[in-house]
Structure formats: structure tokens, C-alpha cells
């Protein structure tokens, strides 16, 4: 095999992306769990963890830029490396959503407020499950799997709408909690957006494998949210 050093760099970048992905998965699950426990200490740890996620993202970006500059990748290699730049950006943003949830936990403190833990827990688990399988499809360059995962986003959207309606009802019944209930809606929003970003990762996987840039699941989420 030729280009052993280049191959090694590509493998290392893949490994680092998987590591970044697992850091993000952990952050999201941890944020949802900390909300359930109203654990402010853990929320502060998630803040710290997000800094590590950001640093990891920049380190990978730097490695990709050096590889592009020194190895002149073309065709599949070039698609892979440029898609990797997109994917690490998506992962970093997903980490930011977890951080956003941590921020809500800190804001809520121990305020007594009805929180739909069940729905939010399911949203978090679903988003993380989608992310985990999307990263497997990315490594295997499995077009079929990458094309299928985004269809699961509907389930997250439905849960989001449920939480939205529940919280609106609570606000109407008890206007005093509007500020805090609004924070809970932001948690659902962040989890819904996290699942959306899995779709972007899947689209990049299809691009790496086929060279086709396409939108797998045209999103009309914004309309649903505002309806």
C-alpha cells in the first residue's frame, strides 16, 4: 500500500471524531439526567466538559487542515476530509446544546415547576441513539443506514411538540411560572435541534460515499414549532 503516513493520519482523524462524538453523547445524556435530578453541581461539570469538547473540535480541525495542506487529498479523500470539517462542527454545536441544558438547570435551581421528565428523557435518549448510529454509519460509509436514520427525527419532533403543548398549558394555568416554563421549553428545543444535526452528519456520510450533496429529509420543523 502506498501513502502509509497519509493513511495513518486519516485513521487518527477518524478516531478523534469518534472520541468527540462519544464526549457529546455523554454530555447530552448527562445533561438530561442532571435536569431530572435538578443537580446543579453536575450542570457545572457539563459546562467544563463543553470546554473540552470545543478544544477537541479545534484540535481535529487543525489536524484536518494540516493533512489537506501537506497531502493534497483528492476525490474520496478530499470529500472525507472536508465532510469531517462539517461533522466536527455539528458535533461541537450538539455539545453546545447540552451546555444550554446545563445552563437551564442552573437557572431553575430548585424552583418547584412541573417538568415532563419522561418526554425529555426519551428525546435525549433518541437523539443520542441516532447520533451513535450515525457515527457508525459514518465510519463504515454505510449509505443505507445514513439515509434511514434521519427518518427517526419525526419521533423527536413529535415529543418536542408534546412538551411544547404541555408547557404552554402549564403557563396558561399558572402565569407565575412562565419564565421557568420557558426555560424547560428551551431544553426540549435543544434536544430537538441536536437530533436535526444528526441528519446533517448523515448527509455528509452520503456525500463521502457517493459524492452527492443532498438533503435527506427536507426539514419543516420550524413550521411545526411555530404552529
Amino acid at each position, binding site marked *: *500500500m502506498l*501513502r502509509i503516513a497519509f493513511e495513518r493520519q486519516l485513521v487518527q482523524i477518524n478516531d478523534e471524531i469518534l472520541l468527540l462524538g462519544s464526549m457529546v453523547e455523554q454530555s447530552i445524556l448527562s445533561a438530561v439526567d442532571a435536569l431530572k435530578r435538578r443537580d446543579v453541581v453536575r450542570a457545572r461539570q457539563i459546562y467544563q466538559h463543553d470546554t473540552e469538547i470545543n478544544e477537541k473540535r479545534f484540535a481535529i480541525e487543525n489536524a484536518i487542515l494540516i493533512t489537506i495542506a501537506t497531502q493534497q*487529498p*483528492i*476525490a*474520496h479523500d*478530499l*470529500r472525507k476530509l472536508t465532510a469531517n470539517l462539517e461533522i466536527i462542527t455539528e458535533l461541537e454545536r450538539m455539545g453546545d446544546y447540552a451546555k444550554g441544558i446545563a445552563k437551564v438547570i442552573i437557572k431553575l435551581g430548585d424552583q418547584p415547576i412541573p417538568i415532563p421528565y419522561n418526554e425529555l428523557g426519551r428525546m435525549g435518549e433518541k437523539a443520542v441513539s441516532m447520533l451513535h448510529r450515525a457515527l457508525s454509519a459514518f465510519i463504515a460509509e454505510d449509505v443505507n443506514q445514513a439515509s434511514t436514520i434521519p427518518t427517526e427525527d419525526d419521533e423527536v419532533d413529535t415529543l418536542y411538540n408534546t412538551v411544547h403543548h404541555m408547557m404552554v398549558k402549564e403557563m396558561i394555568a399558572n402565569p407565575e411560572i412562565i419564565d421557568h416554563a420557558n426555560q424547560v421549553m428551551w431544553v426540549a428545543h435543544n434536544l430537538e435541534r441536536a437530533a436535526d444535526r444528526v441528519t446533517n452528519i448523515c448527509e455528509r456520510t452520503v456525500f463521502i460515499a457517493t459524492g452527492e450533496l443532498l438533503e435527506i429529509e427536507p426539514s419543516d420543523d420550524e413550521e411545526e414549532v411555530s404552529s
Partner: protein
Amino acid sequence: MINYEPNTPNLSDANHNILEVKNVSMYYGSFRAVKDLNLKIQPNKITAIIGPSGCGKSTVLRAFNRMNDFVRGYHLEGEICFHNQNLYAPEVDPVQVRKMIGMVFQKPNPFPKSIYENVAWGARINGIPGNMDDIVEQTLRQAALWDEVKDDLRKSALALSGGQQQRLCIARALAVKPEIILMDEPCSALDPIATLKIEDLMRELSVNYTIIIVTHNMQQAARASDYTAFFTMDPDRAGVMVEFDTTTNIFTNPHDKRTEDYISGRFG
């Protein structure tokens, strides 16, 4: 909307071909160097031929203006048509072919004469009409060399830098008023700046000329050409064309794995 597709002609636009290779095999004695080649070259485009050493790239390029005729034991089967005229038909004069289809070689090879005489020579022996001073100036301008040499036209061509010598050789080829310019690794002896100047020049020349270039420099093919043909060697060591497509497709999403392996440096 960004439309960044500088070199993306459409293959389906190929209604007219200036050169068409039909079922061509080429032999050196009993050794078949190139087999079963079919290829269409479009006018006013730059076509790059790439592939590993020994795959027949230069043999194919030299076949386009019958330069292989000088090689003992060489013969060609099939047809290479220039404006639908088979260049290998018995009535065709190879000298006329080379007038219409010029060549620039790997190493700059100016004559040991003045800059002026190098350009005037081709025009003179081919009886190109007009004022010779005007022809020389116009041709040197076309070759993007005029500004650098206008005050030294009587200086020896050998005093020029390698890049300037190569542009002088291009000017010498242009002075004969060809339709096609063949380039056999024209930048392999040049530094990166001189290389980029030749590539810019190729792009300008393609407005009036058809250019076919053999290059080992993958990035050069990607940067400078409209179409790319990838050749490789079959197990019987005969050169074959694996894939021909727009340069954009070849370098972003080639269809054949052998092309992908070669351009990404995994083979060859």
C-alpha cells in the same frame, strides 16, 4: 449563488470533435503498446492525459501528429480523424499534419539562434504571409513572452530562463498557425512559478487553439484542463484508457476504482 465550476464543460456538448480516435491499437514491432482506444477531443478545450509510466500516454500524444512514424517497427491500426479526415490515410502528408497539429516537448528546445529567428523560422518555412516583424510580435504576445523579450529580440534564445524558453517554444509552434497544440509534460523541467505561467497561457490559448497535454503532475491536470483521460497498463502491458470525463468529475468523483487509486496516490 456561488458558481465555482471553472472547468466543467458537459460531455453531452460534444457535438463536434476536432479529433476522433477510432478503435486504435499501436504496436512497436510485435509489442502492442496501446490497445482499443476510442477517444473524442473537443475543439478549444484542454484535454489532459494522465497515467503511470509506460501506459502509452506519450505514444498516444505522438500519434496525433504522426511523430511515431520516425520509430522503427511502429505501426497503427484503426483511425485517427482530424476534422473527419483519417490522418493515417495513404494520401495524407505527415508534414502537413504536423503543421496543423504542433507539439511542445518536455524539455525546452529552442534553436541556437536569436529569439526573433526562433519564432520567424516556423512562419517562414511554412510560408505564412504578412510582415515578419508583426508576426513575431503577435506570436510572442500570444505566448505571453513579448513584454519580457521585446527589447532583446536579437539575443540568443539560449540566454532565456527555462520557463521563458518553453514559452518561446510555444510561440514557435504558434507561428505555424496550428489548430491543435500537443504538449508532452511541458512543465516537468520548470519551477512552480514558470509552471503556473504556462498553465495560465494554456488557458488563454484555448480560446483559439485545442490543447492536449500529457502530464505526470496530477494537480496540473486538475488545475489546467477541461477534460481528463486516465490511462493504465493491462496485465499484457498494453496501455488502455480506463476513464475519460470532465476534469471536475475525474478529480472529485471518478467512476473507476483504478482512476481513484491512481489520482489519490494509492497506485502507480
